[in-house]
């Protein structure tokens, strides 16, 4: 136990020692790419640079096991170039904890060209400034340092190299690209400037919930439907909506496939399933023979979709859309008597029948959230209706006809689905 404590104390001491003994201070660190088997160019204006290239390479290997076989050398070319020397001196005088990288940008076009020509080499700027050593890291992507800091000067070049490697080269190393791969990367369009896809398709499986009442509308619009009960297998106060007969608030399952052209206009085929209980009046003794009485609701619809695509980050697409469409609804009865009932009542025989199919409309909006180009989450909400029987032609004495049962069944729905997306350019 005692030994465990002392080791722990030693580790703590070492951590403290490595972090503090060199007086390391990071001004900013934008985590530049660390390449595997990196070429590291040590750029210093000092006669005797504060780190030794060979020792620094060993420090890198000690501190970052994933870095492979780095090659370190002094950037002699820049040490002999007057533009680079001027910038180096300027940078050394200007490096300050307060300053953001944009204040340290190289303004001279020749210097900017040098940075651009680096390819995947990493430039490590090391310069003595009083009793400190200023450190800055450059890569090909910018003419300003990607990371900067200072370390207390010490004559021990190995420990200086360790401190720099520990502070700035700890990240995961990436494989360097081959010449062909670089060339390909350069000719590839920037992902933010890609063309609008010609066609985008998706398939989704979702769940949701629907109810008769549309949120933010008064209760009394619906109370007569929602509170209504079925007496004697067929009697309700009003039969204009199926919600007079059926429970309205139920979960649903859905499956849909769709596609958009040019991220703008599209169609979607949906299938929708829900199960509703018949709202039988428990006080009514006629139902004592009944085991259950439910209706399965099957709906097939076709939506027109209008959407717009937003790309807030390279790994996510947000596509809000609105849809308008039509649907056919089928209510399939599922009724069963109790086992001991041999002959059902007369009322059972003459029970209410719904139309074979209803035609209705869909209207709503939602959004796809597409991650990593393929994996989507779809959210949507809207209103759907079921209207009169589509097979009945209007007759001259339509006014005299009794209205169709459930001829105005409207509900509100909200749902979420998991989707898979395919993009065709």
């Amino acid at each position: 136990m005692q030994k465990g404590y002392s080791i722990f104390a030693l580790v703590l001491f070492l951590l403290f020692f490595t972090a503090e003994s060199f007086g390391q201070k990071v001004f900013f660190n934008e985590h530049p790419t660390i390449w595997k088997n990196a070429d590291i160019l040590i750029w210093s204006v000092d006669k005797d640079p504060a780190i030794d290239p060979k020792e620094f390479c060993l420090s890198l290997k000690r501190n970052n096991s994933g870095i492979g076989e780095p090659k370190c050398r002094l950037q002699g070319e820049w040490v002999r170039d007057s533009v680079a020397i001027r910038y180096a001196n300027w940078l050394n005088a200007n490096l300050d904890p307060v300053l953001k990288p944009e204040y340290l940008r190289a303004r001279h076009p020749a210097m900017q060209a040098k940075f651009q020509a680096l390819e995947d080499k990493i430039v490590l700027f090391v310069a003595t400034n009083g009793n400190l050593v200023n450190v800055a890291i450059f890569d090909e992507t910018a003419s300003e340092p990607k990371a900067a800091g200072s370390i207390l000067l010490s004559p021990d070049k190995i420990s200086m190299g360790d401190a720099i490697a520990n502070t700035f080269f700890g990240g995961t190393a990436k494989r360097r690209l081959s010449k062909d791969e670089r060339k390909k990367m350069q000719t590839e369009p920037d992902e933010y400037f890609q063309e609008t896809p010609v066609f985008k398709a998706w398939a989704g499986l979702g769940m949701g919930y629907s109810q008769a009442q549309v949120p933010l509308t008064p209760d009394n619009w619906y109370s007569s439907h929602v509170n209504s009960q079925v007496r004697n297998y067929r009697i309700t106060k009003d039969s204009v909506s199926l919600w007079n007969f059926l429970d309205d608030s139920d979960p649903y399952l859905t499956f849909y496939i769709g596609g958009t052209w040019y991220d703008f206009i599209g169609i979607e085929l949906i299938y929708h399933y829900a199960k509703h209980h018949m709202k039988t009046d428990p006080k009514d003794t006629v139902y004592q023979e009944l085991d259950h009485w439910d209706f399965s609701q099957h709906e097939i619809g076709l939506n027109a979709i209008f959407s717009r695509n937003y790309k807030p980050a390279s790994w996510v697409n947000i596509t809000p859309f609105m849809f308008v469409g039509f649907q056919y609804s089928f209510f399939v009865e599922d009724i069963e008597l109790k086992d001991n009932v041999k002959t059902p009542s007369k009322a059972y025989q003459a029970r209410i029948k719904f139309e074979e199919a209803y035609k209705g409309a869909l209207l709503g909006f939602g959004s796809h959230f597409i991650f990593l180009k393929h994996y989507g989450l779809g959210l949507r909400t809207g209103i759907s209706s079921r209207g009169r029987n589509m097979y009945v032609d209007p007759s001259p004495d339509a006014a005299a006809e009794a209205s169709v049962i459930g001829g105005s069944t409207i509900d509100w729905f909200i749902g979420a689905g998991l989707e898979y997306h395919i993009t065709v350019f």
Partner: protein
Amino acid sequence: MFRIFAIVCIAACALVGCGHSYHWSKSHPLYKKPPYANLAIVGTDEAFVLTRSAWFAKKLGWNPDSIQLKATAFCEEIFLNELRRAYPTFVKIPDEQYKQLPEESQKLDDRIFMKGRLPEQGVALKDSAGNVPPYILILHEFIVGTDLKRETYFDYALIHNENTGKKTSKNISAIVSYTLWDNEKQRPLFSAVDEIQHPIVVPTPKDLETLVRTAVKQIRINLYGGAS
């Protein structure tokens, strides 16, 4: 409920900024101490420009052929004298070495970009005696005209708008863009675009003089105000 709505509206308005306002100056984070006694200047030889020169020639009674030269020299002289009075140690750095530098733009605001030459990083400018002055005021542009608006010169979205032909001029105005340069560390400490309006009835050389003096005063006030 309405109160909450109103507060939300005001907050949204403050966030997105109803009505556009510009930032006309930018300070370096390390600009702590403005120059009090010691100042050098560079860029005055080519900074002064007179617009509506025909109008000025007519009103001031100067020869239209030489009005540009005469008026800019006149303004430059007043400008330098005014600064010389304000700063005990004042030097004018010859423009020769400065003129060879490339033009660069400095961003002051989303749409405000200021064009001008800046000395190279790592190279300190020297005066004719070979000394290195610590602060240099770099004058990029000094535009003299009537009823000028600085946004029409510096907001890139408005630059190509044509001026509507105006007959009467209420003010003579100056638009000055300048940078206070830290010559020791070669960095811009403070950059700004100022607009000065001077009301006139009939313009006289005296009005032009007052305009330039006001401009210098404004520059000095901003140099003090810009330091943090």
